[in-house]
């Protein structure tokens, strides 16, 4: 299997506060990987390092052999926060994606907006937080890339709409592509994963295939998560 992402001993701290500590793993082609952990466990830090938005203290990350800053054409990234200028409409955002990404599929994006009941001409600043997140997801999932990195794609979305989001991720991601999805809402998405990486205070607690975990423990990933992070079970810092 071809490696798409290689993370080798990456460490990044914020002054005295730990971000991530000597993390290593690789993601192969076609994998859907859940990056799980409570808030502050290092999920977003790790994702920013993969995107080249943070620089590591030590260690190395490559995406198909390239440094993160050189690999942006290969990755479609949904950050934790919305990132389009608030003066933009979706039409304008389409133009940006069309301009910069040769792999952007506008037809796909339009049909996703339709699924989400969003208007192309509506300015972003008049949209609710949930609507903005959906709009961003439509853009990100409409690219045809080897790697999708989604940071909390369901953070601000109400439970009723989460299923729609999941379906559209499944429907639109390019089969054969790798998908890295961080979340703390595990029960909603655990059906999606091939593999889960549990982060805890900057360390990797567990990195396993989900079906193996289910077969071995007879428990859901959500339950395993709860037990792992129950008070008293946590690794001492």
């Amino acid at each position, binding site marked *: 299997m071809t490696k798409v992402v290689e993370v080798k001993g990456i460490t990044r701290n914020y002054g005295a506060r730990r971000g991530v500590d000597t993390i290593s793993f690789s993601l192969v082609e076609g994998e859907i990987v859940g990056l799980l952990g409570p808030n502050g466990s290092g999920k977003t830090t790790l994702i920013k390092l993969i995107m080249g938005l943070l620089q590591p203290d030590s260690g190395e990350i490559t995406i198909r052999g390239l440094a993160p800053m050189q690999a942006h054409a290969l990755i479609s990234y949904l950050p934790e926060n919305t990132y389009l200028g608030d003066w933009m409409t979706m039409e304008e955002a389409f133009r940006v994606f069309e301009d910069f990404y040769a792999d952007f599929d506008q037809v796909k994006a339009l049909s996703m907006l339709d699924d989400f009941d969003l208007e192309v001409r509506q300015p972003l600043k008049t949209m609710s937080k949930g609507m903005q997140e959906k709009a961003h997801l439509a853009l990100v999932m409409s690219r045809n890339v080897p790697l999708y990195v989604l940071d909390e794609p369901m953070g601000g979305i109400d439970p009723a709409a989460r299923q729609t989001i999941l379906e559209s991720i499944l429907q639109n991601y390019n089969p054969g592509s790798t998908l890295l999805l961080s979340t703390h809402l595990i029960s909603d998405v655990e059906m999606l994963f091939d593999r889960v990486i549990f982060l805890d205070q900057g360390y990797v607690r567990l990195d396993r295939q989900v079906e193996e975990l289910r*077969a071995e423990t007879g428990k859901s990933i959500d339950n395993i998560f709860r037990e792992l992070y129950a008070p008293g079970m946590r690794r001492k810092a």
Partner: protein
Amino acid sequence: MSYEFSHEVPIYLQIMDIYRSEILAGRLIRGDQMPPVREVALAYGVNPNTVQKAFLEMDRLELTRSERTSGRFVVATDELIESLRLEQSDKKVQDFILDMKALRISRQETLDMVKKGWKDD
């Protein structure tokens, strides 16, 4: 389609169960085409690789076979279906007997109840 998977059991086993039941019940017969992996994944809201794994497992059991160009077909022979049906019914009966024993119902009582409860339609 809505189907509640149990999150405690490997999903691919549950998908296999769904399609094996279809075959044993005769709703999918030899020569029928299996739905594409992606379609199944979307319908059940699960990872395509999981569906792929379930189908490969069914290929291994010779319930289905994947033709390189035209897709995946049900190829289960009557003998295979028969033996799987027996295997499955035997398992169900064993479970049933255990349940009855747990309720302290005797063998004769159970047989009578089955005779009484069995209605031909």
